[in-house]
């Protein structure tokens, strides 16, 4: 059995940052493995540990810089990695779901996995859509926002819980092959062991270009055009307490006491 897990390196914005046209200026960005994908990776590795002969392959659409993040996934037990990148992608401001779907579909065609795990959302552009879109494109079944997974590979089903709003969970049977978008909290992502980190150094990260995937530049033409980016106007009409921490605390304490909070 083969599990394909999508892994995105996301950019996080520092507290103080500046915009540079349609981007956050590079010096204010920090890169990390997407929070949701950390849980997807753990889930994939657990499937491999609980079943015989499972290969876990990760796929990332991202520049060479992402290799560092990919190594983290490899150190946690992913067997090998694929990284899709191309000059044609350099100039795309916002890679839309359609374009990501076309790229990942081509990878699925090549790898022929039995199950694909994605994160619910990428924490930078937060479409929350790539997994389900991919499923539709490759004619897999799917489930979004999965917070428990019981895989019955022989029976050809995944029994999942989908986390709905307001503390309600939906129990669903999903026929395999399937794409599942994984919600945080589904498991406890492990820390990479020293041995894992060492092993990761010798695992393969295979770079693939558009032509390697049988695609051309039209595959990454985004139908969404980023036209503006700005810091949202703060709508705050909060009363701010200024000064040293002790002063701030004292002022807040007065407000609370006046409202009867904490008054014995």
């Amino acid at each position, binding site marked *: 059995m083969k599990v394909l897990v999508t892994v995105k390196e996301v950019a996080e914005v520092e507290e103080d940052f500046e915009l540079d046209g349609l981007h956050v200026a590079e010096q204010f960005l920090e890169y990390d493995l997407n929070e949701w994908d950390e849980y997807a990776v753990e889930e994939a590795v657990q499937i491999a540990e609980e079943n015989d002969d499972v290969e876990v392959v990760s796929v990332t659409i991202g520049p060479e810089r992402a290799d560092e993040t990919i190594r983290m996934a490899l150190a946690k037990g992913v067997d090998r990695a694929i990284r899709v990148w191309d000059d044609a992608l350099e100039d795309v401001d916002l890679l839309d779901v359609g374009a990501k779907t076309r790229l990942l579909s081509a990878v699925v065609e090549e790898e022929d996995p039995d199950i694909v795990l994605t994160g619910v959302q990428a924490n930078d552009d937060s479409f929350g859509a790539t997994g*389900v879109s991919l499923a*539709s494109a490759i004619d897999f079944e799917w489930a979004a926002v999965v917070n428990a997974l019981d895989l019955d590979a022989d029976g050809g089903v995944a029994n999942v819980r989908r986390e709905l709003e307001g503390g309600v969970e939906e129990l669903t*049977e999903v026929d395999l092959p399937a794409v599942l978008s994984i919600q945080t909290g589904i498991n406890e992502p492990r820390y990479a062991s020293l041995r894992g980190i060492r092993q990761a150094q010798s695992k393969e990260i295979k770079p693939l270009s558009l032509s390697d995937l049988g695609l051309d530049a039209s595959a990454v033409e985004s*139908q*969404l055009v980023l036209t503006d980016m700005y810091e949202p106007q703060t709508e705050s009409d909060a009363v701010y307490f200024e000064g040293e921490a002790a002063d701030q605390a004292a002022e807040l304490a007065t407000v609370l006491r006046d409202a009867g909070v904490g008054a014995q």
Partner: protein
Amino acid sequence: MSDVLAVAEHRRGELRDVSFELVTAGAELAGDGNLHLAIIGGDVDAFAEELSLDGVDTIHTVAEGDEFNHDVYVQAVAALYEELAPTYVLMGNTVNGLDYAPAVAESLDIPLVTDAIGLENDGGLVVTREMYASKVESTVEVDADNAAVTIRSAEWEPTEAAGEPAIEAFDFELDESRVRSRVTGFEEVGGGDVDITDADVLVSVGRGIEEEENLELVQNLADALGATLSSSRPIVDNGWLPKDRQVGQSGKVVTPKFYIAVGISGAVQHVAGMKGAENIVAINTDPDAPIFDIADYGIVGDLFDVVPELIEQFE
């Protein structure tokens, strides 16, 4: 002028709020065009009556199943799209929205924009959305004639005024062979010993607390205030507090007199659970954290400095 097809949402016998918000957003987007509203599954006739609202031109009912099933939704919306040829398909950016909207867009081969907080339609569609955990807002132009859009919950006012749309049962034949998932039940999570929805004062802790050991600090604050401890999601995901302490979209909705958010950024899914609090206090190092947008009282500062001082105030 554009025709819009909006898709209502319901669960366990009740329409969800976003359905009424979709009517508002849909009518705005349609302008002089037609707003079609699809109701798929459940008691479609009762839902149609409830959704006979101002701005809706035609309601199309698809009596197929009791509950949401994404395979049914994708087929039904695609069939309606073919029949009605709307310019835009509008859906909710809910958990079920995430489960079918991307497949609708993909199968219709139209672009998808999710989690819209603003929509403008002048000759083309321009969508406002957030990026980087709400630190940045962006506008995207859709470079196509048609598009599928999901709207954020509680961004548009719900439509309440009654209207007189035509109600039509849509002639739809489900391809059963393409229904490959089955909902087998629902479960309510929770049932711990603490009911955070009952508390007058909540001290709520977020990822700013950094380590499990540090939770004691906020617990001490809660004790000093006679308050109950709740949290944002990552604290529960880490297993530091039980699930019944989680405030937010997938946790509890709370409306205490005071909600003191300590090291919580104020992500939209968190805010969904606490924006109804009477007074919101935010303690956060980042002056631009979205939590300050809805706070009544703000302290820009390090919780490890402020919280001990605050505890001292009440000892």
